[in-house]
Every structure is written in structure tokens, then in C-alpha cells.
């Protein structure tokens, strides 16, 4: 009569951050909203964040995914620092996505830094949701705890 199954509550947490000195956060907000509607718990840090602030927020909230939006052109420096800090903190098991106006020639170097995926202008929200979901699921299944 009774079928017992273990209930697993899978609620993934995502940090959405604006890194560096640009205040154009409409894109980040649209993505944050779409992720929320898809069932993610989204923490939005607001604009003009330093890599240090983003990494601190990510470890205090223990998020499954970090999503960064940059429209200022400073992505090479900022992302290098962010990835370095994650390693330093031992939090490099958190997958990082980057979105924004990123010139194509910069992509290989960014991927080399360990960024999981880069969303260029025109990427559909569905693609973003799918990829973030995939990455979050993977992180949870591999996580050391």
C-alpha cells in the first residue's frame, strides 16, 4: 500500500553578479528573473561589484553556479581575478558563466581560465536556463559534501 521513496529536495542556488564599473544591469536582471521563474533560488548582488565581493558572496551563500554579466570591456582582467580567487578560496568547484558584450577573439582565453560557458548577445533565455541547470546538477552530484 505504501511505496517509500526518499525525497530529495533539489533547489539550486545561483549567484547573478555585475562585475566591474558598469551600471547596465538590465540584462543581468532579465536573466535573474528568468532563472527564478525556472525554479532557481537566485541571489543578485547588484551592480559595480569587485571580484572579491562576488567570491565572498558565492562562498557565504554556497551557490551552485555563478553567473557574471560584464558590458564594460574589462572582462579579461576581472574574470582572471575572479577565477584566481575562486581557486585560492578552494571554491573552484562552482561553475562560472559569463554573459555580455565579449569580442569573439577573447573567447579562447576566457575558456582557458576555466569559465564554463559564455553567453553572447542573442543567446536565448532557454539556452541559459538549460546550461545553468546542467552545470548546477553536475556540481551537486560531484560535490565533496
Amino acid at each position, binding site marked *: *500500500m*505504501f*511505496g*517509500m*521513496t*526518499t*525525497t530529495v*529536495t533539489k*533547489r539550486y542556488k545561483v549567484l547573478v553578479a555585475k562585475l566591474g564599473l558598469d551600471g547596465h544591469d538590465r540584462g543581468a536582471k532579465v536573466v*535573474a*528573473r528568468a*532563472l*527564478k*521563474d*525556472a*525554479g*532557481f*533560488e*537566485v*541571489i*543578485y*548582488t*547588484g551592480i559595480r*561589484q*569587485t571580484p*572579491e*565581493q562576488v567570491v*565572498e*558572496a558565492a*562562498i*557565504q*551563500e*554556497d551557490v551552485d553556479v555563478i553567473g557574471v554579466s560584464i558590458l564594460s570591456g574589462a572582462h579579461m582582467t576581472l574574470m582572471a581575478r575572479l577565477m584566481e580567487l575562486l581557486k585560492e*578560496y*578552494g*571554491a573552484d568547484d562552482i561553475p562560472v558563466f559569463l554573459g555580455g558584450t565579449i569580442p569573439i577573439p577573447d573567447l579562447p582565453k576566457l575558456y582557458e581560465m576555466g569559465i564554463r560557458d559564455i553567453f553572447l548577445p542573442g543567446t536565448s533565455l532557454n539556452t541559459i536556463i538549460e546550461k545553468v541547470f546542467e552545470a548546477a546538477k553536475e556540481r551537486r552530484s560531484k560535490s565533496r*559534501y
Partner: protein
Amino acid sequence: MDKYIEKALKGDRLAIGRLLTYIERDPRRAGEILKSLPRNDDYHVIGVTGITGSGKSTLLSQLLTSYSNKGLRCAVVAIDPSSSFSRGALLGDRIRMQMHATNPNIFIRSVATRGLKGGLSFAGVAMVDVFGRLGYDKVFVESIGVGQADVDIMGIADTILVVTVPGLGDDIQALKAGVMEIGDIYIINKVDKDPGEASKTFEYLKFAIESGELGHNTWVPKIVKTSAVLGKGVDELVNIIDEHLEYLRETGKYGEKRSLRSRILVRLLAEKIVSDRMDGLELPSEYDDVYIEAKKLLKKILEDIDE
């Protein structure tokens, strides 16, 4: 897990963050974690509630500045609602406090209500306990702030701040039976926007307190006017919060609050265990005696827990 406990006690924020995740996901481990952390009764839990948009997070951010400048360690459990539709959540309290992200003496954790009315979950209350045991001096709980359900926060906080804004006269009346009767300190925030209205709101609250409508026990609730964005009134607020803590200690209510918090924590976990298991059970689609069916269900759950 043990290595995280060791590191967390040394203040490692990655370790603390991950311990809190255990607490959210696995009640059994939550028990082990709380057990292995040293007991600490000397920390002050401050609940912040009030209507949406009244500036709770901004005010809290100012309090964090004040207390951390005094050398105290502060933690925040920021509760935001989950969507009833997608079950997702946008946890936005952190935005107003993000300037403190890199301060080693401040730790902020956002929690979604996940469908719980009143917003008080086992995980949320257990986190408060964890922060206390890790040696944080002030533990703030910022609630979702929607009227009557928020009375729940009363059970776990030592000091309750209720934040309102000027010009809501009638709404204050409406709220009186719920959130407006639980405050130890009432804060009229955003006074810079309309000083005239702020004075009216002040008088209204003062009358309500003097006429005995507000407040419980021997503490006479205080009213403070603030402008959190400008940092006005924050020093006065800090003094009154400290005064309330003093009052709790002198009257022995400090200990009572601790016992109440323990009782609430055990009860919330018992409820969580039952409701989590219930979700995995196949329920009978027909019944002869519904009461007996319900009892059978509970027995099945109990057997399963013993394993």
C-alpha cells in the same frame, strides 16, 4: 564534514557556508553539526521585520556597520519568499548589504521560505544556532515582512525590531493585531521623505504604546525615527537595542528566550521530518475511516525513522 567544522570554528567562511548547506539539505547532519559545535548562550538574536519596502535591509546594513566598527562579529539570516508558481526565489536582501561582503567579521546568508508560511523554517532557526555557536555576537534575522504570519519571528529573536514608514496611519491600525504588537523597538524609517508625516506616525505609535495597546510584559516598547539611507538615527537605535539586551539579562528573560528557541527548533524539525517523509508516501485514494488511515501513515513514518 569534520574538516569543515574545524575550519568553521576558526572563522573560515567557505567552511561555514558549506556547513549551512548541510543544515539546509540534511536534518540528520544538521543534528550532528549542532552537536559537535561548542554550546554558546552568549549571543544576541535580533529579528528585523516590517512591511515590504520599509527599508529593513538598508537599516540592517547600517547596524552591521555600527556593530562591526565596535569589533563585534555579526551574522545575518536573510529570509525572502519563494514563488508559489515556480518554487524559485529572488533573494534580494543581500544587495543592500553587499558592501559588507568582504568584511571578515560579517557573514550573510540568504534563505528562501520554500513554501513555509511565516517564513520560519528549521534550517533558518538552526542557522541562527550555528552562528551563535561559531561565536558571532549579533545574529540578525531579516524576515519577509508580511503582516500577521511574521509573528513567528517573535519566538526566536531576543530583540524584535519592527520597521515602518511615515504616512501609513490606517495601515498601522490594520496591522496592529499582527506584526505591530510584537515589537520591542518600533522604527519609523525614511523620515527624510516626509518629516511631517513621520511626526504623526510617531505620535500614533506613542499613543498606542502609552494606552497599553502595544507591547507585552514589562518592557515599554521604544520608538526611533531613522533615515537608513542617510545613516540618521542609527546611533540612537543601537543604544536602544543595547538597552533592551540589558533589560533581558537583568530580568532573566534572556534565558527564557533561549529555551523557547530550543523548543521551537525541535518542533520545527519534527514537523519537517514528518512532512518530508509524507511527500514520499503513496496515499490511499479511498478510505473507510480517515482517522485510522492517517494513523497508519504516521506509524509507517515512525517505523521508517527508526531504521
